């Protein structure tokens, strides 16, 4: 999978490059709008991560230019401008998704993956991680064959973590995808933390081996660690 990152700020470009490469993507970086447009029109990419605040040509111009060439490549716009008007402008110009800086990196990864696999929404009802099994249709959770009783919210939370297993999930992602909140409030972070604590008490504590981990400063991840 090849990704083109168009970002003029070196630190940001390096971080994006390193982060995406760590997630097994092949990354090309363009440090200006012209270079980005040139690369995008001459090579084939599976996704373009486009910063809007570029020197010279504005990111939106590059995007409209690309769309005029009928390039169907998905574009994820990354910007510090976050008013509704800016979003509408970006989406009108042909962006497939919109992410406001500063964003959590897991969030970027999640969006990138979602855009790349778009069109094939294969939702599997049965999810599994180590000795943990979930049937999302029957809404049942088993660990080591024993049923775990979860509240509705805890179940949704676990399902989300299980679908993203092995990947770090940020509080922003949980707020948006599990709690379906459009705006972010400080109180919600506390609510999420308490739910995670409850889930951990039911999921991990009786069984010894930890599956639900906190990645300090970033979020949470559900994975089997061999230590």
């Amino acid at each position: 999978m090849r990704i083109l990152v168009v970002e003029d700020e070196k630190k940001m470009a390096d971080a994006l490059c390193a982060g995406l490469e760590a997630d097994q993507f092949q990354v090309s970086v363009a440090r200006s709008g012209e270079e980005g447009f040139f690369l995008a029109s001459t090579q084939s990419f599976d996704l373009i991560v486009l910063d809007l605040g570029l020197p010279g040509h504005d990111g939106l111009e590059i995007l409209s230019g690309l769309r005029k060439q009928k390039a169907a490549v998905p574009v994820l716009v990354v910007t510090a401008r976050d008013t509704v008007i800016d979003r509408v402008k970006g989406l009108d110009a042909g962006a497939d998704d919109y992410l406001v800086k500063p964003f959590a990196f897991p969030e970027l990864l999640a969006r990138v993956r979602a855009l790349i696999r778009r069109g094939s929404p294969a939702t599997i009802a049965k999810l599994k991680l180590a000795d943990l099994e979930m049937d999302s249709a029957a809404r049942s959770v088993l660990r080591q064959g024993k049923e775990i009783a979860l509240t509705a919210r805890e179940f949704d939370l676990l399902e989300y973590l299980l679908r993203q297993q092995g990947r770090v999930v940020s509080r922003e992602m949980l707020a948006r995808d599990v709690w379906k909140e459009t705006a972010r409030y400080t109180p919600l972070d506390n609510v999420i933390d308490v739910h995670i604590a409850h889930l951990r008490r039911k999921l991990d504590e009786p069984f010894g081996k930890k599956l639900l981990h906190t990645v300090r400063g970033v979020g949470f991840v559900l994975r089997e660690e061999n230590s």
Partner: protein
Amino acid sequence: MPLWPQRVRGRLTLWYVGVLILILGAYLAGVSALLFWRMSDVLKRLGEEDLETVKGLLYFQPDGGVAVREDYHHHSDWKQVQERLLEILAPDGRILYRNERLGDRTIGGAPFDGEGVNGYSGRTAKMSDGTAIILISRVYVLQDRPILIRVGYRQDLIWDELKETLLVLLAALPLVLAGTAYAGYRMVGRALDPIGQMASRAEQINSERLNERLPESNPQDELGHLALVFNAMLSRIAQSFEQLRRFTADASHELRTPLAAIRSTGEVALQKKNSADEYRDTIGSMLEEVTRLTNIVENLLVLSRADSGQIKMNATDFPLADLVRETASLLEVLIEDKHIKFQLQGDQSIKVHADRLYLRHAIINVFHNAMKFTPVDGTITADIGRLDSARAELLLSDSGPGIAPEQAARIFERFYRANSATENGLRLDANGAGLGLAIAKWAVEANGGTISVASAAHGAAFSIKLIAA
């Protein structure tokens, strides 16, 4: 130089003079008309007397003709009477006599039917040569012969006298006008003087010296009132400036705190060699501070957009109880964790008119604030009621330590976190940046409501008053 003066003083003076000219003009016209009417009247009366005199001076000549001894000296002061025009006619209109002054002109032509028969008849008429006259006539029977005696006096002589009188009056006019203009100019100047003083004082007041005020000489008059209003506005501006200054200082301070933490954490970690886990911990700690920074910046953006009026409210009608229940269920885990008892009381059917999303944000913030300060096993009560037909109230009370009165007034201020709270254990928002209640206040007020601390005695109570649907 423009004809119309630029300054109020000149304009007002011009108005004074203009109005005075109009009034004087009307006055003079009135006086002239009255004078003319009076003089004509007097002249007619004199003419009647004159007629009698003429009658007395009349004699028949041997040939049967009529003559008047006009050389007889009479003493009228009136020039008109001295310059009398005389005509004597037979009843059939035949002219019997004309005096020298009349010559061969005629006064009034043929007599009309019944002229002078029953007493004096007076009228204005035109002579054969077109001279306007006042004509008095009467029929006398002398030696059994009826004759009509007419005397006429030139009207332009009255006009001449009028003109003289008017000329005297008009000669005084420029003097009067000049006097009035000068007095008016001085008076307006005196009246406008305080405004000039106020303007020069106001000019000295700028953002650095907002504490200066205009003198309020006499609050009863218009200028005193103006100064009062101006001063009140200055106070409000000064207050806004002070708030802005404090807000900027507070915002920098709030942003500086996480920045300092990030910096020290990073610097300390780089001082010695650490294990991968230790580095991971350091980075994690730095990221936590970044999250804090991000939250502050996001909240500040919300408030700045709110301040500049960029956020539009999209109001709908919905039951307030639903929103409170929704909030409680969102925060349920936190409530249960502290074994807090939550009660929803009052009229659950009351609907409010507001933007649901922003009002929800406000209620979440207020609810969360209440929850944080409610001790384990405490209670939170939401009471919904109707104040009147137009307003509904949500009273959210908790069993926490309450709010000190001096804090109650400031609790909705931005970044306000009850400085003294650290000492007496009152409201302290340890994690938030002290913007939650400020945002709540904005959201409620943007929806036409008010938010206040209703009671601070036993626990705190927040009152949110909204527009009832």
